[in-house]
């Protein structure tokens, strides 16, 4: 096994660990917005590491650029959708407070 293979495996393993932690956080965290933290940060880092492993394994600069683009779009999309969902979680929280219902 070459040094590149080892690096690919390490990156792949770390990426999967972050994906797993993201899923676990979505299950374990007690409130909506905290769960959103797990989704936004852990999963996109997981995707980034997995993408790095894929690019390294592929060994082509053109493909690596495309993989980088996949990750970049995912991060930009997450930056916007997480704000939309957080705003919704915040609204739901104030709404149930106002209506006298415990969130």
């Amino acid at each position, binding site marked *: 096994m070459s040094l590149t293979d080892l690096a690919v495996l390490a990156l792949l393993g770390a990426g999967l660990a972050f994906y797993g932690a993201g899923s676990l956080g979505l299950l374990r965290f007690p409130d909506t917005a*905290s769960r959103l933290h797990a989704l936004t940060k*852990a999963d996109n880092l997981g995707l980034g590491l997995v993408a790095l492993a894929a690019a390294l394994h592929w060994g082509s600069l053109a493909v690596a650029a495309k993989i980088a683009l996949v990750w970049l779009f995912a991060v930009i999309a997450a930056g916007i959708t997480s704000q939309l969902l957080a*705003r919704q979680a915040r609204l739901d929280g104030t709404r149930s407070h106002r209506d006298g219902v415990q969130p």
Partner: protein
Amino acid sequence: MRLASALNRSVFFALLWVTLTGGSADALIYGGLAVAAATLLSLRLYPADQPGIVLWRVAGFLPRFLADAFMGGLDVARRALDPRLPIAPGWVRAQLTNRNEAAGVLLGGVVSILPGSLAAGPGDAEMDVHLLNVTRYSADGMQADERRVLGLFDRRIDSHNVANG
């Protein structure tokens, strides 16, 4: 000014196209159409007289952003995996110095990548931020982040700017 923006944006979209298609020659004609359409649409959605982002400044921002993204993911993963679940979540309302919507959305995205904080979109010169540990909020840190994000734009966006300029 409008022409320069159109030119800048078409070069950007053209680079995007070449990356996506791997520079294949028989896709170039479609690429020309797609780039023209994308440039027109982008000028319509975000007119040239709005504050623009300077790409080389973004490049300078990138190493720090990547480090933040890594620390942010590590922090939340550590908390999710810890059997004691060490979080004390809560909301704070951060005061911003500007009302520009584009800068606010960009700041919200950056804040959401940082360890422990998540933005609920910009409001009127303020932003609701959710923290995994609400006792660790730093208003100074938030102000520094805002200054850094404002520095990515091609002109000064100060507190007197109103939304939609």
